């Protein structure tokens, strides 16, 4: 499996996710600068966490308009898997690949801590190695992770099984609607999630629950 990681100015989890992808695939992912307008073929495109363009205006808004994102949208429409983590999730909603928006946390504070998550859909290429309904611990670190969408969209998401990850009800760190932590598009091949699986892919860092996302991708896409 070949992965690409898009690097925006202000991305800061690009190296971290590259380390996990390399560990899972045995191959260095291609790091693609936001200003490029061509995107080499790959099996999965990762939009990493961070503060693209300083998170100015709105998180992810300017990254969503950068040259490379046109290519990402095209590839996604043709079926390439896309994983947006944290700021990457914000970019995916801003560019329209995923519905809704990530608003400021209800407590108005940045929050960095472990959260308990429920895997609500294990049929995506990202979650195949988790049990349906399994509880996992993956950290969050964000100031704008409060998922919001209108009621129709929310009904559609839950009706179609597109809520892939949700916070355990008593452990919602940001006030997100329906405790949403991660959603996918209709094809199931574009996933946006606020938690950082790349931060818990080895025991030395406090857990391995995130690792299966990467090894699962390799199984699903190789």
């Amino acid at each position, binding site marked *: 499996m070949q992965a690409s990681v898009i690097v925006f100015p202000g991305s800061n989890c690009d190296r971290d996710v590259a380390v996990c992808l390399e560990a899972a695939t045995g191959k260095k992912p291609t790091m693609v600068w936001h200003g490029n307008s061509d995107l080499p073929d790959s099996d999965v495109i990762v939009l990493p966490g961070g503060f693209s363009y300083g998170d100015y*205006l*709105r998180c992810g*808004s*300017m990254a969503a*308009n950068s040259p490379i994102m046109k290519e990402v949208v095209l590839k996604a429409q043709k079926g390439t898997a896309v994983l947006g983590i944290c700021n990457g999730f914000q970019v995916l*909603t*801003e560019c329209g690949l995923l*519905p*809704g*928006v990530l*608003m*400021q*946390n*209800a*407590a*108005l504070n940045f929050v960095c801590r472990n959260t308990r998550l429920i895997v609500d859909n294990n049929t995506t290429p990202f979650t195949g190695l988790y049990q349906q309904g399994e509880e996992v611990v993956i950290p969050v670190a964000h100031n704008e992770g409060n998922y*919001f*969408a*209108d009621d129709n969209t929310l009904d559609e998401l839950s009706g179609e099984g597109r809520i892939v990850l949700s916070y355990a009800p008593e452990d919602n760190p940001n*006030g997100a609607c329906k405790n949403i932590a991660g959603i996918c598009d209709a094809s199931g091949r574009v996933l946006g999630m606020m938690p950082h699986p790349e931060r818990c892919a080895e025991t030395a860092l406090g857990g391995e629950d995130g690792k299966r996302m990467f090894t699962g991708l390799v199984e699903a896409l190789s």
Partner: protein
Amino acid sequence: MKATVKITLKYGVLDPQGKAIEKSLGQLGFSGVNEVRQGKLIELDIDADTPEAAEKQITEMCEKLLANTVIENYDIQLNLAE
């Protein structure tokens, strides 16, 4: 031509910052303050032949970048005096 774009959260969208401001105002002794909403103000100077052309361009900017129309409204004001 100078223009001002006012971006506000749509009614019905929770505005935690607005709520916090409202609460603080109350604690500072300003009573009877309700419905505090906060937003953004963007000023820009645009080359355009007519006000209509300017407004059209700025509307496009709002739709594409300046506002997230899922949660935000925008209001464009052109300063025609200049």
